[in-house]
């Protein structure tokens, strides 16, 4: 159990800076997921916490102790790697117990602790096997056992599920979650899979281009994305984005071909904005319905429980997620309807969220 404090941490290789001044506080026992596209510096940040990568600037403290200059073994972190990184020549038991062996724990105690960990992870039958003879999920569990046995202050996961097939991934996901509830150790989990991130995280850290874009609970990130990047990165299918401009009576979209009558309180006329709306917040209505945007259906994707309807809005791609049993034919006309509360506004220049619209909507007096 430990808190992690990250202050102005950056990382550069030769002349290339890959992490730009990250600040992050992780409280004790929290499960934090760092989410971002590949190359956003999320793994580098994790490896800096682990001590596998040197910190170019700033400080990382675990439990109040600055660990910048400490060796990985002195930091009290355990790590689960993407490719498991099991020692191929050692049996499962030896793999799990290796850190204890290095630490000089007597054989009797070691065996006992290996047994205990194996019981939690249901590896008891496999202790004598070599990693070669294990399936992907079993290897993953051994890798977790290897991290657990040290009873570390901090668990670090570096995309540990990305090598598993879809079904196993879902299963391991809930196992990791259960394990965390049981051990209650501070955990940092890196992934590029947003479903993994949303389901696992107490708190989500979205990174892009070496910077933290937003920190918050999965719910906050989904409903109040702080930037255009977060808005389009989190959620599937991705949030629709339309370029627009604030005009006198609301918004002019797509170079003026469409207009939305929304309140524009606080934003000066002429401000360029990007308007986002989640596919699941859009309703399909009959074409020509008053107040609806008319569009042409491009493609319908059947998901079983629902459908994603891709429509064309004057050349701009737009998707609608619906659970209703509608099957509009490609080429047919539909109307799109949504409420103002579901709109997200972002600055066209900086990409950051403009909250003036919602904040200034007057609350009706009772």
């Amino acid at each position, binding site marked *: 159990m430990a808190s992690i404090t990250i202050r102005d941490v950056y990382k550069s290789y030769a002349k290339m800076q890959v992490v730009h001044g990250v600040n992050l506080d992780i409280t004790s026992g929290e499960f934090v997921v760092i989410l971002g596209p590949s190359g956003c510096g999320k793994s580098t940040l994790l490896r800096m916490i682990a001590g596998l990568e040197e910190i170019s600037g700033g400080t990382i403290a675990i439990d109040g102790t600055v660990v910048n200059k400490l060796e990985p073994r002195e930091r009290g*972190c355990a790590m689960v790697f993407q490719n498991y990184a099991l020692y191929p020549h050692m049996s499962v038991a030896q793999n799990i117990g*290796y*850190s204890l062996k*290095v630490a000089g724990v007597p054989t009797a105690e070691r065996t006992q602790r290996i047994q205990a960990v194996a019981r939690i992870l249901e590896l008891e039958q496999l202790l004598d096997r*070599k990693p070669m003879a294990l399936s992907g999920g079993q290897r993953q569990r051994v890798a977790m056992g290897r991290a657990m046995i040290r009873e570390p202050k901090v668990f670090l996961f570096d995309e540990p599920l990305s090598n598993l097939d879809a079904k196993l991934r879902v299963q391991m996901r809930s196992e990791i979650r259960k394990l965390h509830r049981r051990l209650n150790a501070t955990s940092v989990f890196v992934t590029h899979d947003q479903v993994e991130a949303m389901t696992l995280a107490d708190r989500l850290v979205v990174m892009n281009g070496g910077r933290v874009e937003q920190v918050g609970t999965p719910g906050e990130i989904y409903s109040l994305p702080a930037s255009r990047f977060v808005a389009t990165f989190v959620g599937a299918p991705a949030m629709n984005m339309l370029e627009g401009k604030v005009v006198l009576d609301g918004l002019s979209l797509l170079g003026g071909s469409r207009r939305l009558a929304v309140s524009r309180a606080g934003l000066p006329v002429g401000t360029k904005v990007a308007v986002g709306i989640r596919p699941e917040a859009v309703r399909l209505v009959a074409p020509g319905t008053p107040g609806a945007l008319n569009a042409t259906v491009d493609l319908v994707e059947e998901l079983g429980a629902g459908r994603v309807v891709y429509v064309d809005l004057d050349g701009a791609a737009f998707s609608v997620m619906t659970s209703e049993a509608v099957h509009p034919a490609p080429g047919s006309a539909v109307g799109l309807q949504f409420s103002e509360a579901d709109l997200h506004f972002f600055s066209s220049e900086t990409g950051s969220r403009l909250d003036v619209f919602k904040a200034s909507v007057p609350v009706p007096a009772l």
Partner: protein
Amino acid sequence: MVERTPILNFLTHVILFLGFVFCVAPFVIVVIAASHNLKDVNDVPMSLLPGSDFWINIKTAWTTADLGPKLFNSFIMSAGVAAGKVIISALTAFSIVYFRYPGRMLIFWLVFITLMLPLEVRIVPTYAVVANVLSPYQTILDLTGLSWLIEKISGVQVSLSLGLLNSYTGLILPLIATATGTFLYRQFFLTVPDELTEAARMDGAGAVRFFIDILLPLSRNNMAALGTIMFLWAWNQYLWPLLITTDQSHATAVTELKQLIPNVGGIPEWNIAMAGTLIVMLPPLVVVVLMQRWFVRGLIATEK
């Protein structure tokens, strides 16, 4: 492209068989020659039917060349070279691959250069060093005037001397210092995934622990291969043992074979010479057969 037609199958087998005959024929002739008596072995052409004197010839060769102790010497030298080489190469490659320090590339290239300077090329300086290991230091002391200074001050004349002629150390050490093994290990170490190294670091293993617990067990196939090759190579060394063993007690089997080869004008005892050759050939053969089982085991349990 794999073709499977009966004609091609037959042809490839014929080629294989011809190759086999080509390789084995000399050995068969040696064995037959070793079984003839003095008269039959000098017949032209020599009879290809085995004679009956095989064991007598073997015994004669054994006693004439005093092969017992010589084989022992050879074995010590070859095993020493193989073991030394396996250890030194693993250590150098470990240093070059896993550590970042100033001069690393310089050291790498220095090791590389030894590939171009085999023992035969540097045999005179190597001999000088082995004759007195401390002579380079003596030279340094002399050139810097330090020995003169010491003599002036303390009255003691500095004369360092440690000879390795006629010793196992002298036989083995110069043969260990070559680069081939280092490169073999280097290539292997480069294929070991970085995550394994990092996992070991997270588990708290320091460099030495990692080397002994993880790297060495992973490279045991490499070690078997290198050890075998080096054993054979050292066993077949002729020039170096001949040069530094002035005393019979440290001579090796391969150099002593010369005793059995008939001199010009001497009795042409080729049957004895062939018998001696067979004996000397045997130990490396055993090593190859034993180590081959290791290779195969390594191949079955493919790792990574």
